[in-house]
């Protein structure tokens, strides 16, 4: 039996110049990258988001005690509680700009309902950014 087998595909692949990385090499590389990036992983120890949410809820509760909803007073309260942050207060769809948002991507929205004078109900949205 005289049969010739030619492995043309394999031969062609082997002839190509370049780097050949096996599974183990790729795995090693991936683990190395993971290891190098691990110590620098960002961890929010300060729980800033939770603090922002708590203080925004405080604002809503304190405003809920006063039915007049004085916009100027509310803006002052907002600046007092969040002195280094921007944001706006939306009362029943009407925006009250408190301070310019520096980073819109990290904005927090806190929504609540307040009962004002003459039992009027209004949705209040606080944007903290």
């Amino acid at each position: 039996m005289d049969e010739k087998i030619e492995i043309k595909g394999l031969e062609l692949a082997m002839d190509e110049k370049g780097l050949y990385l096996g599974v183990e090499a790729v795995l090693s590389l991936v683990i190395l990258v993971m290891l190098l990036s691990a110590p620098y992983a960002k961890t929010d120890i300060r729980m800033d988001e939770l603090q922002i949410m708590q203080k925004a809820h405080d604002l809503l509760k304190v405003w809920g005690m006063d039915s007049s909803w004085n916009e100027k007073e509310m803006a002052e309260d907002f600046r007092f509680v969040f002195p280094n942050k921007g944001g706006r207060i939306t009362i029943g769809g009407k925006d009250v700009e408190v301070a310019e948002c520096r980073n819109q991507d990290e904005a927090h929205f806190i929504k609540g309902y307040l009962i004002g004078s003459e039992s009027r109900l209004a949705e209040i949205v606080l944007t903290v950014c």
Partner: protein
Amino acid sequence: MRITGDTFMCLKHEKGIIFSFDLGFAFIALCIMMYFILLNADAMIDEGNSRIREFDSYSRNLLIADSAVKNYDMENPLLGSAHYNLGKRRVEENVIEPALLARVEGADIVFLEYRDNSRETIIDGKEKGECIVAERFVFLGGRKAKLNIGFCSG
């Protein structure tokens, strides 16, 4: 069945080169990993422990401050300084009872900041090392204020 000599030699030769390069690369990567692990093992463990402790302090501080503004506790005002409205028969959240706040114990720092920039200190924790302070917006004696409750590591 016959594999020609050229093909056989070619395959053997290429396989050997690829294997060596691969193994070498993986070995170098492994060495670098081991180097970093050994170099930073202590530092990483210390940093991890310190982060856990810091996280613990922050969460405890936030919980205590939250409890202080939401509850009424005559025995331990630190966990409940809110005003109890007898008429409504309920605790008024974020409305602080000045008499209870004056009796607060257990925290290292407790002070109030009013909107007119005045400040009232209840517990002064100066010279107690690094302190973590939680801040809440409250209503106290007809005035709006920021209640700060803090704990120090020193």
